[in-house]
């Protein structure tokens, strides 16, 4: 429980802001001016009335007692979460020199706080007895039900793939998106989000330009491989079975051993679709000399947490997710705040990079790419495309087609100026996607994404 004595710092409060605009707006409201009837309890609740643009002041309450993060409630219509009023109130509480004094909560605040505590209590007792430990039987039954639905989905998908191949892929060009969207929806129903995502991508291939039949056959075949992997997961070695479960869409927790290292932030980039923003952060262990991937999600339009700027290093623990060839890991305890570093990852040649991808496919045949740092490479134009050529060999990796029209490509080319540079990126069957580069001489990391 957070006691009155350990109020937060302003930085900690501002770190909760969903975006820069909220941070500014919250900062403005962090002064006594618009507030009335503010107070806080020893249990870690803060409340106050904020004069807004409406006639009635907004009722704002924050509960900071929860270890998993504060909870907010505010009468304002903002869609931001937390809203600027909650941030302003917390700022006032954090740095307001006794403006927010210990007091008894007014009724409207007390109702919400009490309701929340009750639900949390219920959840704790329920969680203590329900999820796994006290009632493994129920959990097992739920898992079995879900596995059964996925099996049904995978079986249905196999049937569709078989029908497609019997009639020929040429027909898929006419069938268009709808067929695949419908199938994808069936996979969502079957709670197999991994299968659903793959099916949705199949729908886009026939319109992806020349060579689509080859790509479509490849992806159909890999989907078939995944279906078959799921249907025979009992016969697979443990590692591969875990990979299949993860690929199908069953979430697991990062239960690998915690590895403490100086983790260098190599790259951070977001991709988004209509529903979700996905953030990928590549970390590189200075001692372990391996790269791990932190994945986080945010609702569309919201930045996922955390944000780790390229060029910093964290003294932290990281645990891997289960599965053979698993790149994904979770960030555990951090022992010191991130600090800038001159450290660079160890590099490889283009041939070694290709070999690394090939070897990684042994553990996870569905792998699109592996993280690789190329040493001493020069970006070279090759017709309409670009490649990264070894400085002193006759070999080169083409850049992935998607990397070709990003501003990052030109930053990379400008940084190199025809001279060798060090480049970190993802190396896969489509080519190399550069994410970060370092100049040959001294100088910090240059983000390319």
């Amino acid at each position, binding site marked *: 429980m957070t006691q009155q004595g350990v109020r937060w710092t302003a930085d900690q409060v501002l770190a909760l802001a969903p975006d820069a605009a909220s941070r500014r707006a919250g900062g403005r409201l962090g002064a006594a001016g618009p507030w009335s009837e503010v107070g806080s309890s020893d249990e870690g609740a803060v409340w106050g009335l904020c004069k807004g643009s409406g006639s009635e002041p907004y009722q704002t309450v924050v509960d900071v007692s929860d270890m998993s993060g504060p909870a907010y409630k505010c009468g304002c219509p903002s869609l931001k979460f937390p809203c600027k009023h909650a941030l302003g109130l917390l700022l006032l509480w954090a740095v307001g020199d006794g403006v927010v004094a210990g007091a008894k909560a007014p009724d409207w605040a007390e109702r919400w706080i009490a309701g929340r505590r009750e639900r949390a209590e219920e959840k704790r007792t329920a969680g203590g007895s329900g999820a796994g430990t006290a009632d493994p039987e129920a959990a097992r039954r739920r898992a079995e039900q879900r596995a059964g639905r996925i099996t049904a989905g995978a079986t249905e998908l196999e049937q569709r793939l*078989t029908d497609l191949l019997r009639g*020929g892929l*040429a027909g898929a060009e006419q069938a268009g998106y709808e067929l695949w969207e419908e199938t994808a929806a069936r996979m969502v129903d079957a709670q197999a989000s991994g299968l659903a995502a793959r099916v949705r991508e199949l729908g886009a291939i026939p319109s992806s330009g020349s060579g689509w039949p080859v790509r479509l056959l490849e992806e159909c075949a890999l989907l078939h491989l995944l279906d078959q992997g799921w249907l025979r997961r009992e016969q697979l070695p443990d590692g591969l079975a875990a990979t299949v479960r993860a690929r199908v869409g069953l979430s697991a927790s990062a239960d690998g051993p915690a590895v403490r290292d100086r983790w260098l932030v190599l790259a951070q980039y977001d991709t988004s679709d209509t529903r979700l923003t996905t953030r990928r952060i590549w970390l590189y262990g200075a001692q372990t000399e391996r790269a791990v991937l932190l994945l986080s999600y945010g609702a569309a339009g919201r930045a996922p947490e955390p944000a780790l700027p390229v060029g910093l290093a964290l003294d932290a623990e990281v645990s891997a997710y289960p599965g053979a060839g698993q790149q994904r890991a979770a960030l555990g305890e951090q022992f010191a705040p991130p600090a800038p570093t001159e450290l660079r990852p160890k590099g490889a040649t283009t041939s070694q990079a290709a070999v690394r991808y090939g070897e990684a496919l042994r553990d996870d045949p569905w792998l699109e790419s592996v993280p690789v740092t190329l040493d001493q490479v020069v970006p070279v134009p090759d017709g309409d495309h*670009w490649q990264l*050529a070894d400085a002193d060999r006759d070999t*080169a990796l*083409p850049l992935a087609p998607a990397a070709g029209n990003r*501003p990052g490509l030109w930053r990379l080319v400008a940084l190199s*100026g025809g001279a060798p540079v060090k480049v970190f990126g993802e190396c896969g069957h489509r080519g190399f996607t550069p994410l970060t580069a370092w100049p040959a001489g001294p100088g910090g990391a240059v983000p390319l994404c």
Partner: protein
Amino acid sequence: MAGRTGRGGAAVLTRPTYENGMPAEGNRMTRTPVPADAPVPGVWEELVTSALLGTDRRTPPGCEPGPRAPAELLDAAAAETVRRRAGLCPARAARRPEPVPDDPRPPLPAAAAHRLTMLLTDRPGTAGGGRRGTAPDLMELLPQWLATANARGFAAPPQAVPALLDAARGRTDLRPAALTFAGPRALWLARLNPDWRFALRATPGGGTALPGPEATERVRRLWEEGLFAERVALLAALRARDPATARELLASTWATERAEDRLMFLDSLRTGLEQADEPFLEQALADRSRNVRATAAELLSALPDSALAARMAARAVTCVSLDRALSPPAIAVEAPHECDAGMERDGVVAKPPSGRGERSWWFGQLVEAAPLGTWSARLGGRTPEEIAALPVTDDWRSDLHAAWCRAAVRQRNGAWARALLGAPTAPEAGGPGAVSLAERAKLLGTLDAGERAEWVAGFIATHGLSEAFQLLGMCGVPWAPPLGRAVVDALNIARDAGSYPWSFSGVMGLAERCLDPSEAGRLDGLLAIPDEPEDASPGAGGYWAEAFQRLVRTLRLRAAMAEELGAGQEERRR
């Protein structure tokens, strides 16, 4: 790749390859050599064909026809896909570009490099709405930042060059400074990206620096064989360094140039115009093209000792005389009655623009081209001030004074400019007098920076800001202390008068960019929201406070920018 079948070749060639810039997929893959350890040669191509046509029409290799065929095809294709991906080899490297020539300039200090990134990422229009708020307008500070960085001789951070080129692409006024700062890397990149072609056009010889004086032969070859833009740039650069050589180069091919090219080339003689140019310009007076003739005449009239100037003076003095019979004496004007062939040859345009009387039109052109030194003798030995003060009969005053203004600007005659400008505090200076604001701005351009600033300061102190924008644009940056004080005082007065600040947004914007950053401290008193007087526009006080806050923030930011570039000292001393 077709020749490399892999049989007996190096092991590395027997595996699928990332081909010619395209990853190993698509149709290209079908031409890829078959791995030596493949179960059946060409099995992947067979699988693709079966898949495309359907197993009902084409049984895949190694499968039984029947209901199991699709599944067997997928099994085989999955194995092939993973095998092909796992076996990928690097492609053959394409020809590497020549590396960028060395840039000997020192790198930017870290703080300045960070600042540059901020300036370049601030796109106009990101702060929604028309209201400008209190945050500085970063993009507007980029020209100043570039000028300081160039003056300090720093090299651009390599990774910032693409953003610099993008910024310069959208704003032609940024190009010279941005390209200087970006250095050789900008030209190297511009050859690789068609979006940045403008960088090659903007530089003489498409990027190769101007050949030194020793390389006469290279200059001549570029002049004779180069593209038009390259030749214009070459001539301009050469003219700036060595006017005579540039003129001779132009004369060597003059007869063979096209009319519109001749006009452009002739125009570049404006730089470093000298008496020695006269014979060449006299010859151009007989040019086939009317525009070329007019430009040649204009250039000649800017040379007070030229024969053309003397001819024009002779014509002009017959039109202007001093009528001593009047009291006080006044200037009498008798405009020419015709435009003869001689006048036309000397560049007088015979046909006036519509709505303009032809006699006053001819008269203006004669006076404009006559050397200003002519008038003192003609008008009883008077000084320019005395002449400007003389009354003019029959409404000819504005025609005559306007022509003298053009002459003062063209001949860069400070004494006449001062006389025509008059005292900035004179009551008629504020209104639309004989000399328009635009003409006054041009006249100011002939004075030195200190005098200019003082005149504008006096003007603002008397007449306020509403007419000052154009004049302020003529003043050197940062504004001299008296000018800066005059502007701030005038803004303060405008605020107290109760109008809205956006009536002065042009001057505010200039002040943000031009006021000396050390003035920021004097503005602190203006940042608070004042009590609203009875007659003020509602809420104006708040908007003024906001505008002054932005002004102060921008000034502080400029001071920080100069400091980061190690130019804080210089900026203060100037």
